[in-house]
């Protein structure tokens, strides 16, 4: 089966093509095309994984382009790492396909939605199967395109259109770095193949400066895609996309591609201690800053978005401190529990009629039993509670930061772990416990004329402008009571089945790398690679991480469930910090002022210059010439004949002159 691994991306590609051409006629049935394709991909992925365990890497390539003596090839390859990734991607994609069947069924462009999901799955799987880093880049860009299309799926909302552009452009900055890194590597090694690059690094064919430079350029790509500081700003805005998209692309798969990239280029990074340090610190800083912003957001999706950024920071931190397996292990466990949390959020949003502000929720525990329980499992997993998946992988990251990093990195990781537990349980308690606060008023955006006029009301998820506004007092007052919605209730099996599947994985996925079973995943992933010993923590570290998680949960419990500490206790204590966090450290404003406005201003300046100076001189000549032309005749044809005549006569004169000169010289 491993030879047929190419089928895995091809099934969703076929689904995409079918839906592109015939989707209009299928409408809602489009979902079954997508679900069937992903089910097939998942089955093949499982077969491929079983064959790869205990088997060997399989590779197939054909010539793609030739120039001079060089040739670039394309094909597919099944290694241990991508066999694992195939399972993660096809599984999450499959459950998201199933979930969307219900979530998107009111949207009259559901077939377009499924065609984009198919294209995305194809691209993501193509990225994973790539046998060389150029092919990875090609699919890397295609997943970016799909992200753009899906964030902007509700393109008629100006916020969605802006978010789509921002996502594409911000990641594009990183992509240019990545492309340059690849180009330089190619010029050094004559190939994009992983194997050739690894060998060139090991044999010292590339000098140290270039190793560091290319590693950092490639890392820039990861920073953009995996939303690391300072290019993380696109991911929270990307929440404008439908929630299943957020779960699949902006939590589980595409955003993890940056981590995966560092993983597949790991020998290059290991060869440069400078690059490793940059990676570790970028990850740690990102993990910390994103977590601080997650503390104050009130939009359920934005809390999860910042949480995603923070967790990706954890993975990057692990890779930067030689924790290869730790980072990739967390990539896998995070994919399951974060997809679970996002789909859980989607289930909630769907039930409360497309509201996303947790201040309008509450009390859902009794109304939505499956969603609540699975969400709790996801929250426990991400907080790192024993024995759930997040516990095992996060503990390895802490070990890596402690053993190979420094005290600062370790401290940052611990504080972030504490904040993670706190903001997740803040979210959980606000959403599921207490009284339901959403029954007495409608979605504040339901009366938005734009939304009504273009038939978007049935699909539009309310974005939440309040997170962006500085003024927390601007809380929308309860509107007149004309509640035509019924109170929230549990959704159908299309939505709950994916939650149950993912929750099960959030419980058991950690088992694949159990310390007392000899770290089976580690053995699988590192076989044949020369990556050095993987760091493992002692028992005290596991206990410490549990204590940290426990205290975070306890604080959240005290504030948002028990009410022992006022909810706005910290906001009142440090209003400046609170504002800073609510405004996301003003980074958007800073970027606009520092990069966007000056660029446009330079463009305007050049344009004026172009019109007045460069063009002006030419026009001056033009005017005198055309007035000369006019003296020959008023009609254009007359002028043209004149021109032709002058041109040919001129030519003859020049030839004659040349020969006179020749005679003269001769």
């Amino acid at each position, binding site marked *: 089966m491993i030879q047929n691994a190419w089928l895995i991306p091809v099934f969703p590609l076929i689904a995409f093509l079918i839906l592109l051409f015939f989707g209009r006629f299928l409408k809602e049935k489009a979902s079954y095309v997508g679900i069937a394709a992903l089910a097939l991909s998942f089955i093949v992925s499982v077969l491929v994984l079983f064959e790869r365990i205990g088997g060997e890497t399989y590779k197939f390539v054909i*010539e793609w382009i*030739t*120039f001079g003596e060089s040739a670039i090839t394309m094909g597919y390859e099944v290694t241990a790492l991508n066999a694992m990734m195939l399972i993660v991607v096809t599984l999450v994609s499959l459950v998201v396909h199933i979930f969307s069947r219900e979530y998107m069924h009111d949207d009259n462009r559901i077939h377009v939605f499924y065609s984009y999901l198919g294209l995305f799955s194809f691209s993501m799987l193509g990225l994973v199967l790539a046998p060389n880093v150029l092919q990875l880049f090609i699919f890397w860009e295609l997943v970016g395109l799909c992200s753009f299309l899906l964030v902007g799926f509700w393109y*008629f909302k100006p916020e969605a259109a802006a978010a789509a*552009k921002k996502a594409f452009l911000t990641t594009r900055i990183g992509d240019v770095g990545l*492309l340059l890194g690849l180009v330089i590597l190619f010029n050094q090694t004559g190939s994009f193949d992983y194997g050739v690059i690894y060998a060139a690094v090991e044999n010292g064919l590339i000098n140290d400066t270039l190793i560091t430079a290319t590693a950092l350029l490639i890392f820039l790509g990861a920073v953009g895609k995996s939303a690391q500081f300072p290019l993380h700003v696109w991911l929270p805005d990307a929440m404008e996309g439908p929630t299943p998209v957020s779960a699949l692309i902006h939590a589980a798969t595409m955003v993890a591609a940056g981590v995966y990239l560092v993983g597949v280029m790991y020998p290059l990074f290991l060869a440069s201690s400078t690059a490793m340090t940059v990676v570790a610190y970028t990850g740690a800083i990102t993990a910390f800053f994103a977590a601080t912003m997650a503390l104050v957001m009130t939009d359920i999706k934005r809390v999860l978005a910042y949480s995603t950024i923070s967790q990706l920071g954890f993975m990057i931190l692990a890779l930067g401190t030689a924790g290869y397996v730790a980072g990739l292990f967390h990539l896998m466990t995070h994919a399951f529990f974060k997809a679970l949390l996002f789909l859980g959020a989607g289930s909630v949003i769907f039930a409360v009629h497309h509201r996303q502000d947790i201040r309008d929720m509450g009390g859902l525990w009794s109304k939505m039993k499956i969603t609540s329980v699975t969400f709790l499992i996801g929250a426990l997993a991400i907080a790192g509670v024993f024995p759930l998946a997040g516990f095992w992988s996060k503990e390895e990251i802490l070990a890596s930061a402690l053993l190979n990093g420094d005290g600062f990195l370790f401290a940052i990781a611990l504080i972030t772990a504490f904040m993670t537990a706190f903001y997740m349980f803040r979210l959980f308690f606000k959403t599921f416990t207490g009284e339901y606060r959403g029954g007495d008023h409608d979605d504040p955006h339901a009366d938005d004329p734009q939304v009504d006029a273009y038939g978007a009301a049935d699909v539009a998820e309310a974005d939440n402008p309040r997170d962006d506004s500085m003024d927390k007092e601007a809380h929308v007052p309860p509107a007149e009571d004309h509640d035509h919605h019924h109170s929230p209730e549990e959704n159908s099996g299309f939505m709950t089945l994916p939650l149950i599947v993912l929750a099960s994985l959030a419980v058991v996925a950690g088992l694949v790398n159990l310390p007392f079973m000899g770290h089976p995943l580690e053995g699988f992933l590192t076989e044949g690679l020369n990556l050095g010993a993987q760091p493992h923590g002692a028992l005290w570290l596991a206990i410490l991480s549990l204590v940290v998680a426990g205290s975070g949960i306890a604080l959240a419990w005290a504030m948002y469930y028990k009410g022992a500490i006022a909810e706005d206790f910290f906001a009142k204590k440090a209003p400046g910090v609170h504002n800073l966090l609510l405004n996301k450290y003003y980074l958007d404003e800073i970027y606009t002022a520092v990069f966007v406005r000056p660029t446009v201003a330079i463009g305007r300046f050049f*344009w004026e210059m172009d019109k007045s100076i460069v063009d002006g001189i030419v026009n001056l000549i033009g005017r005198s010439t055309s007035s000369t032309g006019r003296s020959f005749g008023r009609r254009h044809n007359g002028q043209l004949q004149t021109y032709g005549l002058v041109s040919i006569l001129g030519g003859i004169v020049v030839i004659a002159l040349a020969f006179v000169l020749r005679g003269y010289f001769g």
Partner: protein
Amino acid sequence: MMGNLLTWLVFVPLIGAALILTIPRENVNVIRSLAAIVSGSALVLSLIIWGGFDRGVSGMQFETVAPWFDIGFLQINYEIGIDGLSMPLLVLTTIVTTLSIFASFSIVKRVKEFYVWTLVLLTGMLGVFVALDMFLFFLFFELTLIPMFFLIGIWGGKMREYASFKFLIYTGLGSAIMFITFIAMFVKGAEAMNFQETSFSMIRLAEIYANPANPEVLTGALKGGLFLALFVAFAIKLPVFPFHTWLPNAHVEAPTAASMILAGVLLKMGGYGLIRVGFGVLPDQAARFATLIAILGVINIIYGALLALVQTDLKSLVAYSSISHMGIVLLGVASFTTAGMQGAIFQLVSHGFISALLFFMVGAIYERTKTRTISELGGLSKSVPILAGFMLAAAMASVGLPGLSGFVSELLAFIGIFGASADLIPAAYTIGVIGAIGIILTAAYLLWAMQRTTFGPMKEKYVGLPDARPMEYVPMVGLLVLSIAIGVYPHLLSDVINTTVIDIVSKIGG
């Protein structure tokens, strides 16, 4: 027949134009069909040649040499032939012209003349790409000028007269410089052979300039001057900053079909001429000025992109994007590597398809909304979803999204510039990095434009606009499929180009 295939290809459109002249002007549909058939025949001929083209052979193929006129010292031959550089451009020309004829079926003004000029233009363009005699080359080059002047001046927009004259004066100036330089090359070539031999043939002149009987004639200063003069002549066409200002006017005012040909083919004559004559006859001088060419390439990329960013008119945005994209060609050729040269030629072809598609889309949208002002558009995905979809695809191709042809040329050009020898271009890395910023700017102006035109709420006045007509699918699908085909599997094209590329680069021992 086989030996004369190229001649047939070049003159079939001219014969077609003569045929159309005999048809009464009222028979609009006959004229349109005939134009499409004639151009289609040229397309088929070019594909037959493509099929018969030997990928393994370096040097010219399908050659024909016949004495044309001979006045003692002045021998001008009808010398034509193609290699891996001209082969793809021939096919590009017939494809873009044929599709633009389909795109212009909506034209109702002076239909007969429109197609006569278009077909004359086609002969001119094909002639430029096959001519190996410099005099012949010049004649064909001139032959493209007059039809385009009329196409802009008669069927153009509000400012058409101004734009057409600007086009004529500017590119006419370029032709004059080219002509004088050709004569000088001819004379000095003859002198370098002690007047034992005179030749206008590019092939022969290249040999003469490489191995002159009397080397003292061909001083460095002379050859440098000749190369720079050639560079300026072709730089106007490509266009290269600061000779670009004719282009936005000409593009904005030209009718859709003419814009497609202008961006799709005419600009490529500049790049082609630079490689064929400049690099072909004076390779050592091309190498000498490599740094200058590379810097101008980067200026083109950045300057064009910055200006595109602030345009308020969608069509002039696309026009400035052409300037930016032609910078890639300069960057590629300057590197003197097989990758860079391949990338430059790839870009000529790729940009031919993509810019023609973009101009077609802008034209189709204008025809419906009666505006090209970006701020007045918006929500087109809702009102005309199919046109908006193709528009978005064209924009993505222009952005250089992998899977579409633009990516391949950018990749190769950057591999080229980063691989350029330090003797040739001292600060190649710096130039490459600055050029790469253009990639970000390109994404910025195109996506921003898409956000403001296809995305956003639908405007009331655009409710109920008709979406794509069946006839419009021909150019849209045709151009997009070609861009995807060579984007997904570039071997289709690189296979034809490669031998010639190796040939050109080896001339400076690279």
